[in-house]
Every structure is written in C-alpha cells, then in structure tokens.
C-alpha cells in the first residue's frame, strides 16, 4: 500500500531534524549491536571465570582430603622442625669444654707446675697453682703468654715461701 502524505510540506519536520532522527536510529542500532556483542563477551568470560573458580575449589577439596590423610606426617614434620629449632638454640649457647681442654693441655704440657685450684666457666678461667722455682714459673708464664687461646692474662696473686715455692693465681679471659 502506498503511503500518501496529505499534509502540506511546510507542516512536515525540517531536514535537520530528519537527519538527527536518522542518525539516532543508526546510532541506536550500532549501540544495540555493541551491547549484545560485548554483553555476550562479558557473560562468556564471567561463565569461564566461575567455572575455573569452581574447578579450583573442587581440586582444593581433594587436596585437603589428601593432606588430612597425611595429618600424622604433618604433625611429625611440625614437631621435628620445632625440635630442630630448639636444638639450634642449644648449639648457640657457649660451652666450657673447649676452655677446659685448653687449660688441661696447658697443664699436662707443664707437669712441674702444680694446679691447686682451677675454675673454668664459659669465656673465663681462674687458675691457681704452685711452681717450685722461678725458672719453672717463668717457663709456664712464657707458655701461657704465647698460647693463642687467651685474650687477656691477669696475674691476680703471687707469693713465695721457701717451703712450697711460688704460689700464683691467674685470671684468664678466653678468645
């Protein structure tokens, strides 16, 4: 059927308005296309992400069940690590044994000097002894001074009596 416009042309819409209407129509079509294309893309991507999350969660549940079965091993590993940390603490503490070995070797190498009382604590040695003659004491002092094990040597007491010879006391700081 043919459309017949009986209205006079002066009453019809202006050319610029018609152009705007035409443009709006085209723009609406383009925008609708954009809406559907990107909408489809976003929807698809959201679906993909959701599926990935669900798959990962289900794999996590399986792994959690596996770990639950290995709970005893985990406890042992944790306990072992805890003990090892404590053993490390133990080994960080100072020991008097090396100082005792050093002073023991020193005395064993100088049998003419008699140690009457020796006290060894970590980092410190108090050595009291006797030497029959000045030569013996001098030799012992020489050995002590040359020993690489002592940081400082302090002669805390020194006396002589004809009966016992030289009595001496040293405070030694170990390296």
């Amino acid at each position, binding site marked *: 059927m043919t459309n017949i416009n009986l209205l006079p042309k002066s009453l019809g819409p202006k050319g610029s308005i018609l152009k705007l209407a035409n443009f709006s129509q085209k723009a*609406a079509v383009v*925008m609708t296309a954009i809406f559907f294309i990107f909408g489809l893309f976003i929807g698809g991507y959201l679906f993909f*992400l959701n599926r990935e999350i669900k798959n990962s969660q289900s794999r996590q549940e399986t792994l959690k069940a596996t770990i639950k079965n290995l709970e005893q091993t*985990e406890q042992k590993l944790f306990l072992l690590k*805890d003990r*090892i940390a404590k053993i490390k*603490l133990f080994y960080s*503490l100072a020991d008097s*044994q090396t100082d*005792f070995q050093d002073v023991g070797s020193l005395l064993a190498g100088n049998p003419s000097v008699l140690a009457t009382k020796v006290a060894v604590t970590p980092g410190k040695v108090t050595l009291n002894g006797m030497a029959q003659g000045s030569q013996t004491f001098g030799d012992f002092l020489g050995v002590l001074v040359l020993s690489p094990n002592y940081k400082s040597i302090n002669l805390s007491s020194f006396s002589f009596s004809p009966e016992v010879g030289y009595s001496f006391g040293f405070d030694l700081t170990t390296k």
Partner: protein
Amino acid sequence: MKKLIAPIIFFVLITALTLFGFKAGFAKILELRTTLAETNIKENILKEKAGVLGSLQDSFDLQANPAVASIPEKNPALFALSQLKNLAQTKGIFLANIKVGLGANELTGISPVDISFDVEGNLSQVLDFTGSIKTITPLTRVTGVEFGFIEARVRATVSVKTYWAPYPIKIPSLVDPAAPLSADEKEILLKISQLSRPSFINLLPSSPTEVPNPFGELPI
C-alpha cells in the same frame, strides 16, 4: 514527531544500559579474577604441601626419634644422669656427689636442668670424659669445671646443663604451607643422629598363671 523521539529515547536507553552493564560486568570480572588468583594461590600451597608430606611419609619415624631424644618433652634429668653414668663407666671413672636442680632460663623456648657431680681420675681421663659429654642425648653442655690436682690425680666438680621443651600446643592450619626440611635442618638431624641415645627397657607384664591351691604357696 513520534518517529523522531522514539529512536532518540531508544538510543539514550540502550547507551545507558550498555554503560551500566559494562561497568557492572567489568567490576564482576575484576572480582572474579581476584578470587581466581587467590584460589589458585591456595591450590598451589595445598598442592605443594601434599607433595612435601607425601614424599616424607615413609622416611619420618627414623628421623623423629633423635630430635625428640635431644631436647625431650619433659625434664630429662634422669635420662641425662643415666647417660652420664654410662659415659663415665666407659671412660673408667666414677661420678659422685650428684646434684640436680632446675636452672634459670637463659633462652626462651628451652628450659634448663642443672646437674653437677664430682669425678676423679687422671687428667686425660677427665678431659676425655668431659669432651664426650657433647656426644650424648639429651643434649648436654659443660657449663663449668672446677678442679685441682691431688698428686697425679685430678678431682673435678663438673657442672652441666641439659634441656627440655614441651611440645607445641598449636599445629598449623590445613591451608598453611609446609616447607620440607632445609639443608641446614638436615645437617642438624645428621649431627644428632650420631649421638648416643638413652636405652630403654620395656618390662612386659607376666602372663597369668594357674594357682592350684589358693591357700598354698604361690608358684614362682
């Protein structure tokens, strides 16, 4: 006029809908991507943990014992004394005047027990004995030695400390990572596995025996 307004209204509506939809869609995408990244991190932690625990499952019992014997859960004074006495016996000396007391805490995490005793022997014997103290478990260290010579013999008062620590109360959560033993930790395990451990004798209860005459003598 109607023909003119309709496409404009439709255009405005579809543009608004597109903008709003894209904004909401992208926000949701960002949220899901963050969730996925977090989930993947958790999954990787669990995967790694399951792998670590699975590989350790069979090798554990052997390694746990020396570590537990080195720093026991409870006061190890009796074990340490038994070990020291055995050690002294092998070195041909005798422990006397044994004193045991709880020591002052030097470090957080491990509690000390002070033990002191007298030993007598020649110098090399005493040096050998004190030098061997580091080879026993529970881990024991020499904290002091006081000695003097009586003729050719040495009489020494040796002070040692041995340590204990209660087991941890809280174990890590299921989703916390579990790292395998580091080279440093393995080295410590190897070191302590060479130390001597206290021996235990399990006394089994005797089985019930028939008593033919309940008023007579019990069979031995």
